């Protein structure tokens, strides 16, 4: 009763709510070039060019990009490296062997004659990832990263790539295929899978204001222990790059404008100017901030032992169809169950039949593939 009263009172006290708001979205967007990517010293640089799309446009449409462009990385001596177009709007420049002691800028020229460039910038040295570790509590696997910076960079962005191996719940004996069934002999084709994912939102950090240029045990990711990513083997590769203060502020501003919470004290969103200018028309606004930096990365593997908490998946409950009057099983009904797969039991001619939804016996249904990374450390297939 006490809690009930408290809930009621709290409901009054905190009845602030957030509702979907379906305002009419703009059908026209200002034509504005977007330049995404950094000049990465010591590895290949990837620059994406695109245009802002209307908010109401179909999300599935291809990104609108300049049909042709010259994308070049220049140093302070006027030397340059040409970019190679790998697909519409994407250019790759080989900066693997560029000196980290030079200054660089990005130069772009579109086929309509407009030219853009960034100011010459020194290379933000890569910080050192001193620790990449994890802890486990009752609910979560928490990942931590410790960074020690170099004197030249006090701002960092952290991104990561995840890979994991998992398996289906059951190994089937029979497959129901095209209205019939067949004995399944290649269960490995559906049992072990590998998934991967890259971080969407970078994690920005700064050591400005600290007595030391280091980040200590920053908890950048937490994964529920029942998550299937932890079922067999999990791996994460963390990449950290150094940024200037202006770059960090700009990128945080972009992020906050897209994932804002809208609470009472959230700053009013606005557009911020990056470091790309149109040299042929200084009034033109361009979206993007191109930094010059080196990156550092570190990878760890996490076994499921003492980490993964298996839970009962409702889909794994076995189903035993009732036989008809003749003692036959009405297999057609199984079509109602997302392409059922037989396992562990007899079909006609067998004494017992057990079956499960496909998602319980086919790991691919969960989004994984059979594409095992070359560097994956175990022998599963």
């Amino acid at each position: 009763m006490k809690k009930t009263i408290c809930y009621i009172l709290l409901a009054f006290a905190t009845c602030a709510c957030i509702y979907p708001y379906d305002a009419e979205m703009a059908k026209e967007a200002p034509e504005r070039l977007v330049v995404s990517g950094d000049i990465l010293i010591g590895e290949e640089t990837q620059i994406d060019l695109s245009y802002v799309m209307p908010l109401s446009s179909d999300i599935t449409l291809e990104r609108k990009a300049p049909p042709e462009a010259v994308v070049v990385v220049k140093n302070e001596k006027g030397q340059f490296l040409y970019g190679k177009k790998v697909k519409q709007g994407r250019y790759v420049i080989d900066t693997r062997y560029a000196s980290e002691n030079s200054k660089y800028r990005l130069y772009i020229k579109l086929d309509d004659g407009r030219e853009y460039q960034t100011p010459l910038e020194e290379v933000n040295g890569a910080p050192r990832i001193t620790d990449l570790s994890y802890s486990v509590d009752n609910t979560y696997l928490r990942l931590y990263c410790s960074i020690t910076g170099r004197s030249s960079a006090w701002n960092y962005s952290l991104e990561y790539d995840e890979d994991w191996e998992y398996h289906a719940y059951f190994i089937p004996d029979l497959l129901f295929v095209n209205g019939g069934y067949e004995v399944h002999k290649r269960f490995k084709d559906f049992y072990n899978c590998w998934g991967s994912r890259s971080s969407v939102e970078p994690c920005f950090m700064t050591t400005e204001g600290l007595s030391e240029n280091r980040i200590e045990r920053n908890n950048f990711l937490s994964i529920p222990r029942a998550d299937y990513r932890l079922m067999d083997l999990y791996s994460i590769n963390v990449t950290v790059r150094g940024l200037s203060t202006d770059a960090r502020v700009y990128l945080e501003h972009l992020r906050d404008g897209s994932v804002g919470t809208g609470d009472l004290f959230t700053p009013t969103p606005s557009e911020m100017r990056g470091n790309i200018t149109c040299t042929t028309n200084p009034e033109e606004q361009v979206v993007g901030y191109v930094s010059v930096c080196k990156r550092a990365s570190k990878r760890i593997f996490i076994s499921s032992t003492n980490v993964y908490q298996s839970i009962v998946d409702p889909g794994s409950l076995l189903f035993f169809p009732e036989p008809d009057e003749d003692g036959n099983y009405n297999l057609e009904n199984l079509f109602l169950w997302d392409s059922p797969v037989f396992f562990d039991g007899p079909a006609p001619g067998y004494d017992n039949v057990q079956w499960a939804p496909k998602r319980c016996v086919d790991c691919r249904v969960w989004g994984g593939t059979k594409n095992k990374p070359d560097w994956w450390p175990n022998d599963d297939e």
Partner: protein
Amino acid sequence: MRRLVITLLVLYGTVCSAQTTLFRGRVMPEYDFSFNGHYYWYSPDFTYGTVCYDGAVYEDVPLNINAHTQEVLVREPPVGPPVVLERSLLPWLRMRGVYYVNLNLAGVGDAPKGYFEVLTDGKQIYYFQRQKLFARDPGNHNGFRGIGYEDPNYREDIIAFFHLKNRFYVIRNGKFKRVFPGRSKQLSLLAADLPAFANVKTDDARTLAGGERPANINMLPELPAGWFAEQTESSAHAAILAAIEQDKLIANYRNKTYEIGTVAASSGPVRVRGTVRDVATGEVLGGVLVSDSSERIYCYTGKDGSYDLNLPLGDNMLKFREYTKEDMDIRVIVKGAGTLDVVMREKVTALKSAYITANSMADHRRTGMGLETINTATMTHIPTAFGEGDVIKSVLTLPGVKSVGEASSGFNVRGGSADQNLILFNGGTIYNPSHLFGVFSAFNTDVIDEVELYKSSIPVEFGGRISSVLDIGAKDGNPERIKGSLGLGILTSHLAIEGPIIKDKTTFVLGGRTTYSDWMLKQLPASSGYAGGKASFSDVNLGVTHHLDDQNSLKLTGYWSRDGFSFRGDTTFRYSNLDVAIKWKHKWDKANTLDVGAGYDSYSNTLENGSEANAVGAYTLSTRIQQGFTRATAKVKAGDHTITFGGDAVLYALDPGIMNPMEGSIVVPRRLNRETALEPSVYAGDVWQPGDGPFSVDAGVRYSSFLTLTDFKYYGAPELRVGVKYSPLPNLSLKAGFNTMNQYIHLVSNTSSISPMDTWKLCDADIKPQQGYQAAGGFYWTVFGNALDISLEGYYKRNYNYLDYKSGAVLSMNDHLADDLVPTTGRAYGVELMFRKLTGRLTGWVSYTWSRALLKEMEDRGPDTINGGAWYNAPFDKPHDLKLVGNYKFTHRYSISFNLDYSTGRPVTVPVGRYYYGNALRLLYSERNAHRIPDYFRLDLALNIEPGHYLKAFTHMSATIGCYNVTGRKNAYSVFYTTDGGNIVQGYMVSVFATQVPYVSLNLKF
């Protein structure tokens, strides 16, 4: 016919003549108080008894005792008026077998005057006295609104507040001592014989009704002189009023003529002064309009309740008007300079709601424009989200006053930003006027006397902000007795106590408020998502007033508040206000005064950011502003001129940022340079009212200056304050005004609402003062016998150097803050139409405002200029605004209040495009404030239950049951768009009170 009358009189006289010796005397006035109590000792019924009077004993006389005046009454014949017997001639009487003695005549000199029942417990004699004292005047309802005719609530309106005192005494060791027998003891007492010492020797015994007639009674052929003597105030009410104000002449009857002064030395106008008090509490009443019959000679009572008028000799009518009090008209014959003290009583026939009063006729007398006055009755009856009277929410019901959204701190007046309002509490500056991020205002209505909002014509003594002045004053403590109030709400409780410290010299008022939201959050389970949250606030007010003498008084006030909240475990906000002030008031007379004051204000906020996961980066971030101030203002009246002059100075010390590491953190301690500055000002103004003419002028100039003590940058500028009024008719006025203002302190914010972490910034070499002017005109018309006010005001404002922020600005711990800010110029204009009804069962007002508030960057920064250098909507620009506030009273005790609010949605910046940046979908935003959130609409209802008339009760409880946002409309506070880390752009709307919010509020007065 004449013969019949004479015959009846002779017959009446014949019947009564035997008693003339006894019945000669004053005639007791009779009122029908049967529903509220009565004067009499036990019952209004007269009882036949025995009385010893003037040396004779009379038996079988219909007797009663007036327990208020402690006088014995006789009534004979039964239909006749009761006659008062002279107490000095009456040693004892006996009714219902009980003796009543006049102990003063019996030689018990230290006994209170009056009569005492003689009782005994078998061991000793007890003397019991019953007293009934008025705390309130019964008033006069025989005038315009006759009892039972035009006033359907007359029975409730005739309110006599009796304080019943039952006291027991004994004579012990020759001394008369008060004792306190228990209830059972009291009930066990029986009637005792007449004490020997009280048995005054009588000449003879006389039987009047049916008994033997004494031989020495004179038989008079006609009624004695004075039998039907005209009832006069002095006889009927002097005692009543003496209970309220013993030593002063109190005029409280409207149908009596008072003579003021003796023969004047000159034939010109003479000065009439006095004090207006509340009849129930004895508290002085400020803000009462006092005028003559022509309403051309008038003044307002000061906070000490005093008034001062120059009246012509001869007959006149003095009018006293205050919205919550009953109108008082007093006929006077002015023979010379003199005083007339007046009591007014609370209006019970009109509605207690609504209640934001800019008194109707006051608009026609005041030269200035845009002054609104709010009293506590107003605040407590306007429905609010959690039922607690709220200063800021009440102010928001006025035309021209807006906010960016519900539960937001601050308010916007006529297109000004929130930091352009000077909020004064007892003269101290309040920098954050809210609790719980804007859900409650920071002021406890229990201790507030009155709130004045100047939104157009700002008096010369105010400065430092360019938009408005909200002047909040704490009341003085009750001079008569200890009083208090206790309020219980859903989220908060408040308590106030007031009373005298030294009788007639020193009073105090102490108030406090707190919330239990913190406790509630702690009770919640972890699964609720709020278990780690904290939200609490509290505030304390103290005021002490000391009257040195009739001309000098000192007032010491203090205010402290604190807030703290955290809904995430790693971040906690705290902020605190502290104000201390002392004021000396010297009054040569009502019109010539001097106020000198000084004080200290402090506002600080702190952000604690740290958690176990990020212990090395944990820190606290604080800002603080402190100011010491002093001001002196003199007001002098000379002929048609009322001159105000004086000066003030504010010394600022502002810490824009202090960052310190928390335990285990490697954050480097850092402190931005403290800003110090001095803001001295001098001012002078004159209100010129030439005779009784229709014109009046209020003109003044204030020279404000500002000197930074860090880099010695100096700014200074004169500020003009001009207002003119033309009143061709007493109920019709036209006004115009022009003001210029300067402001030397800025609030730096990039949020729509005042945030706890917003920082203040003093002007320096890079940041210039805000400057602004306002030109306004108005039309005021009072119609239907002062029942309806119609006003139309228009204004045009400009301001310069209002700070907006660059995109991506870093406003916290920024050594070069000016680089992230841009000065803007603003313009605002609009018209406000208002209809206000102040009388009748239904009271309230409806107002419609059309206005615009626009900003434009003052510098050209090329493509980075906000909106390309064009005018853009200010965040608080809401063109259409409709407000309806009212109250309907069913009976004296029950009324409903309602509040309707509609406005255009405020401007926001929304996305107009999207693009991929890295792996994430990003949004491209429109020009600043180019779109609007949905329009705002809200209806609130409340049922008010006033305390009953159980006037003997120690406590009085009132209750309000209400519902905020009755329609449950999901009003948008803001909208935002997010990609949720995926490929979908979804818009969301934040609604602060997205549903009906019912509430119950209980208030206990004692």
